[in-house]
């Protein structure tokens, strides 16, 4: 099947959600053609507000709308929601636990050519530490579609991390796939090691798993689409059953998925090695998305290498 970006399917689903639920209100800050809220705007103009290039204000407006009972989606690049409007998300949205879905598109290195100023690799970390915030990172189109509905059904703040670049279908291969907030998905069974991945890195982890198979290593792959609340049971079962863990994320290794998984492991009685694949605490660079991913070690080769490191540490 054709690759499609998570932001594209997000935009289409949001519009569909708006057809069904007239409490849904969408706010954007002059990026509706990129966050793909343009579909909703075209269909439901009376419930769409483009506040201009003012992300702090956008989040505040979203909070005010939610305070009256609306289900609100506020949208910009990850850098400008989670990054720029952190204080507004914390104090105007999360502290009063308002029903605002903060959407950060163009997250991570796959923004590509726009370079480091736009390649947010800290958003999961920032959003994860705010009390009451739920953090969701879908890996493909179908998961994105289901997650939009799941977030709408949940009454409270969420951060939704999306990418710019088209991605392959991952969960389509799982029969009857049902997205549930906080419930990780085993996308490939395995007994020797577990790769816990999120977002774009789920597909990469699956590639690594296939390569490892040839070497006689059976790697389990878990799609950890919800970074918070993290699925402790899935992590601990993986630790017990496979004895080593690799995490893979298009994000700084500090504060995101790798940190969240490590926190669960070190506070358990199942101390297994954890190797974190991700951006190694550096800024990105302008280049095509796939070149960036390769340059910063977000590849199946690197994941396979990390798997061998983890097994060796066991």
């Amino acid at each position: 099947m054709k690759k499609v970006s998570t932001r594209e399917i997000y935009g289409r689903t949001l519009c569909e959600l708006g057809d069904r639920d007239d409490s849904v209100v969408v706010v954007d800050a002059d990026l509706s053609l990129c966050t793909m809220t343009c579909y909703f705007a075209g269909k439901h103009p009376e419930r769409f507000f483009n506040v201009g290039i003012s992300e702090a204000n956008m989040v505040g407006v979203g909070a005010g709308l939610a305070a009256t009972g609306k289900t609100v989606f506020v949208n910009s690049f990850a850098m400008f929601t989670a990054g720029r409007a952190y204080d507004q998300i914390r104090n105007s949205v999360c502290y009063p636990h308002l029903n605002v879905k903060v959407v950060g598109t163009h997250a991570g290195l796959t923004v590509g050519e726009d370079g480091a100023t736009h390649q947010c690799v800290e958003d999961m970390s920032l959003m994860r530490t705010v009390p009451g915030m739920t953090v969701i990172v879908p890996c493909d189109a179908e998961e994105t579609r289901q997650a939009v509905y799941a977030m709408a059904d949940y009454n409270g703040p969420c951060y939704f991390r999306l990418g710019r670049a088209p991605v392959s279908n991952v969960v389509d291969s799982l029969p009857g796939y049902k997205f549930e907030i906080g419930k990780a998905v085993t996308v490939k069974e395995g007994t020797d090691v577990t790769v816990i991945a999120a977002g774009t890195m789920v597909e990469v982890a699956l590639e690594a798993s296939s390569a490892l198979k040839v070497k006689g290593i059976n790697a389990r792959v878990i799609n950890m689409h919800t970074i918070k609340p993290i699925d402790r049971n899935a992590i601990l079962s993986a630790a017990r059953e496979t004895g080593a863990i690799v995490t893979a994320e298009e994000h700084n290794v500090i504060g995101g998925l790798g940190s969240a998984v490590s926190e669960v492991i070190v506070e358990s009685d199942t101390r297994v090695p954890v190797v974190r694949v991700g951006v190694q605490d550096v800024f990105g660079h302008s280049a095509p998305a796939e070149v960036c991913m390769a340059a910063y070690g977000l590849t199946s080769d690197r994941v396979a290498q990390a798997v061998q490191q983890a097994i060796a540490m066991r």
Partner: protein
Amino acid sequence: MEASRKIELETIATKCRADALAMVRSAHSGHLGGSLSVMDLLTVLYFDVMNIDPEKPHDPHRDRCVLSKGHCTPAMYSILSRRGYFPRAWLSNFRQIDSVLSGHVEMTKVPGVDMSAGSLGQGLSAGLGMALASRVDGGKYRVYAICGDGEIQEGQIWEAAQAASHYAVDNLTVFIDNNGIQLDGFTEQIGGASNAAAKFSAFGWHTTEIDGHDMESIEKALEEAWSISGKPSVIVANTVKGKGISFMENNPKWHGNVPTEDEFEIAFKELDDRLAELGASWEGWAR
């Protein structure tokens, strides 16, 4: 406004000033200066004009008020309590670990609070969101926001001002509590002259400038704001920080400092005298 109504509102404001003092006295902390300057604005809103019912604090059709200068809880909570949203006994537990009354306004814990605030500059955006929601729902309610003149140094205020004007939300009315003082000193010396009316006017707002301690002027300015269609309104309320307590008035020291016991006694005495002037007493109101 009838003379008797004016006296009634001034009496309420005076008693709430005493409540605010008592709250800060019991907590040994809190922001008195800005609470005393904003008290008359809150009195007119909550006791005179807003379409609200303390029995139904979550009524979806109610008017809303966002206290963007969210640290002025001694004023807001005195007003809400006197208006009947929660028992007066709560006030004496202000800023304590087992109390719902924190240092900054909280919508999840305190009946009558429409929006949490504290980090300055965020309330106007929330007010705009509420005003837009009212429009989506068919224009059922009005929204008020109250900002400090120091607070409008925050950039987000001007993002919101621009968007409110763009969306022509004429159900949004903003008070600037223009008391001329911020934490570090006189606003003019720190952030420059606020020139709030001229700035908002340039942003496309209807503007009025009034004496923010005159009940009748406040009410009239609100009536004028409601008559304006196609743009939001700002009422620059010229106020005195520390209003009503002689030694606090217009003195930057009283942004967040706590008076001594002797000073509290002087302050309460002045409010007692003011009540006597108004021909009112503490009857039915514990001090």
